[in-house]
């Protein structure tokens, strides 16, 4: 069946502000999509102690970063589904890899993946999305994470889709006492890329570390909504976003640290570093701190601008052209995050993808 995607008010800012700024939410429309079961096998192997679960997800009501309509869309059109569970006390030695490839056979993908880490377990899940061929494609993903007491989930999502692809990653996460959620997202491909991550730090000393890199060239549009909700005492969140905008690309970042009453001694830090390379880019940022608890430490810092002249001068004095120097600096900016991707081939793939895009450029503007 051919259908249209029309998602209203997704990636909603938890507390709205002036409508004229156009940052309170985002709508997403794509025409003529058809969905059929994914014919590939993205899952290569399961490490010991990790199973494809038949048990229901422990928090079915968990909220996601993009919101209900994006969740419902994936559920109604799901082409791939998986529920992973790591047993109590097991620290999986290898990551679980889910490698999706969109091509003529699978032009669209709507995947729903649930990940449950039982008490004191640890699991890494690496999800990657790539394209073959250049035709209109769509990916919409729903990923839910549940870290029980003392459990650790590392989630890596790498999006290297083609230039005409519409893509969204919709994530909801929940952490019990001492549970840790660690998310790396590389939003470097696609024509329109949206990402939403909402994490509920429910138990005492639970934590979130979130690192995102984004790369906008051409007329790419990137839209992010990250929310860290602190409910438990001594909870900790770190949200760090780094990216570069070239040509006529645009990016919207919404980042919210939400200290609920009772989250005493919680700490939430958020930082954003944007490099801009063209007078035609558009960079929108809304970093929120919502606070109903006195005994917390919430901070946000953002800096946006050009590469410093001294840095450029230094590199150019070493014989690099201005364009080469800028390309090098973009790569360097992504390194600290890509180096944390636990799969070497994927790590290389991300850098090669960025390098490939950069190498074709004759100018940044």
């Amino acid at each position, binding site marked *: 069946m051919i259908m249209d995607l029309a998602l209203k008010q997704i990636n909603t800012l938890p*507390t709205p502000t002036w409508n004229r700024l156009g940052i309170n939410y985002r709508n997403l429309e794509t025409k003529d999509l058809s969905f059929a079961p994914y014919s590939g096998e993205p899952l290569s192997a399961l490490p010991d102690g990790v199973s494809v679960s038949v048990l229901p997800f422990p928090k079915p009501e968990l909220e996601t970063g993009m919101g209900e309509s994006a969740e419902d869309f994936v559920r109604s059109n799901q082409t791939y589904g998986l529920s992973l569970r790591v047993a109590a006390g097991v620290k999986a030695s290898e990551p679980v890899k889910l490698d999706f490839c969109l091509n003529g056979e699978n032009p669209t993908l709507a995947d729903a993946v649930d990940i449950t880490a039982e008490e004191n377990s640890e699991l890494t899940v690496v999800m990657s999305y790539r394209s073959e061929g250049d035709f209109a494609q769509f990916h919409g993903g729903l990923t839910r994470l549940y870290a029980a007491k003392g459990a650790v989930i590392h989630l890596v999502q790498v999006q290297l889709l083609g230039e005409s692809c519409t893509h969204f990653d919709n994530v909801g996460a929940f952490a019990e006492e001492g549970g840790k959620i660690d998310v790396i997202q590389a939003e470097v491909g696609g024509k329109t890329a949206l990402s939403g991550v909402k994490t509920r730090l429910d138990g005492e000393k639970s934590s979130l570390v979130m690192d995102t890199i984004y790369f906008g060239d051409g007329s790419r549009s990137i839209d992010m909504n990250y929310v860290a909700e602190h409910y438990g005492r001594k909870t900790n969140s770190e949200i760090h976003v780094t990216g570069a905008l070239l040509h006529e690309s645009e990016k919207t970042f919404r980042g919210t640290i939400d200290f609920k009453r009772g989250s005493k001694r919680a700490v939430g830090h958020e930082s954003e570093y944007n490099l801009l390379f063209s007078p035609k880019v558009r960079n929108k940022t809304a970093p929120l701190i919502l606070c109903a608890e006195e005994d917390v430490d*919430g901070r946000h810092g953002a800096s946006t601008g050009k590469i410093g002249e001294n840095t450029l001068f230094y590199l150019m004095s070493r014989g690099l052209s201005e364009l080469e120097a800028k390309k090098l600096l973009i790569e360097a900016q992504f390194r600290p995050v890509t180096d944390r991707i636990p799969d070497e081939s994927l790590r290389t793939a991300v850098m090669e993808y960025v390098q490939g895009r950069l190498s074709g450029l004759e100018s940044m503007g």
Partner: protein
Amino acid sequence: MERKKAAVQDIDRTIYDIKDKVNAAYQVEGGLTPEIVSEISDQKNDPDWMREFRQKSLKIYNSMENPNWGPSLEGLNMDNIVTYIRPNTPMRGNWAQVPEDIKNTFERLGIPQAEQKSLAGVGAQYDSEVVYHNVREEVKRQGVVYTDMESAIHDPTYGPMVREHFMKLVPPTDHKFVALHGAVWSGGSFVYVPPHVKVEIPLQSYFRLNAPGAGQFEHTLIILGEGADLHFIEGCSAPKYNVANLHAGCVELYVAKNARLRYSTIENWSKNMYNLNTKRALVEEGGTIEWVSGSFGSHVSYLYPMSILKGENSRMEFTGITFAGKGQNLDTGAKVVHAAPHTYSNINTKSISKDGGVCTYRSSVEVLPQAYGCRSAVNCESLMLDDISRSDTIPVMDIRNDDVEIGHEAKIGRISDEAIFYLMSRGISEEDAKAMIVTGFAEPIAKELPVEYAVEMNNLIKLEMEGAIG
């Protein structure tokens, strides 16, 4: 043993809360109809253009919705608000001629003393009309015009200037409550400073709303000529009633090439007031607007002075402090549009919330495509004094070119243990260290105000330090 807490006292409102008997010469019915707006026009002998403007604004008001963001306005019912109350006195230029009851009110608030000490001129508004206006001779001799808005509109020289600028910078279509202002405005001040004139000491307007259930809708229009320099201070207060009052004033500031305007406000409305004020400045090449803003009173505030940096090398500095206690929801901040190259903005705000009070810092920094070489720095800091209060920070940046340096820093939390430890390691007692930190929190704002106002502000935030904070 129970951990003792330091307390920040509520604002002592004794002098602000003394009510005068309502002794109006004239007032319209409550509510808002074309007839009431027409009645205001009749009372004020509006020229035709203003009559039409008011009716057009009313239509816009009726076509618009309340904001779908920000604090609730549910308790505000326009059917119960009296939009025009004329006090029982004409405007005086001699303080002795102001009626006793009104004079006493302003004297309690210290307005005549302030004028005697250091002000170049004072306008005092009581309910809907300015009751007293005086400008020092030496300022008049410089060609400075400081008068009430009604006189300015009817003035053969300045009337056309008012018409040219009135609600052009803040059009009635901007939002619902500025449309309301356009329909029912009365009172306020007009200031014109000729080119290259530097007014050495501040001009001041003080707005006092006395009648229960009333609205105050004063309009302030300030026009600075090229290279002119002015400090304008406005103060506002009202006694507390058990019905909602509304303040929906409008401030339009035109800062010409290389001119500098400092606009300082201490808002100390009572806790039944809805303060929905709109302030905007247009700054030409090389000009500077400096906002100093203290928001202490009101039940609900929506207050975000906006600066449009239209000319190359124009600048904006915003320094603000907000203090919300019990029953208060104060949504404050600043907006800036960088519309020209090499413009600069700096926003520095602090807020304190206690006893269930809600402080929200809300801002927007927009850099338009043509505004290359811009710099903007935003720094906001919030202090929470208990866990029944709220403090939210909602800043937005929208950058549309690459030749910019934009920095933003926000911090929310309690007083840092490290700071206390540092001071204690220098031999200061724990209590004194905490007192110093809380007092010092407001210091950057206080030092920007003339000394009389700094004293008033410090009186508004009285600290009672006893044991630990938090």
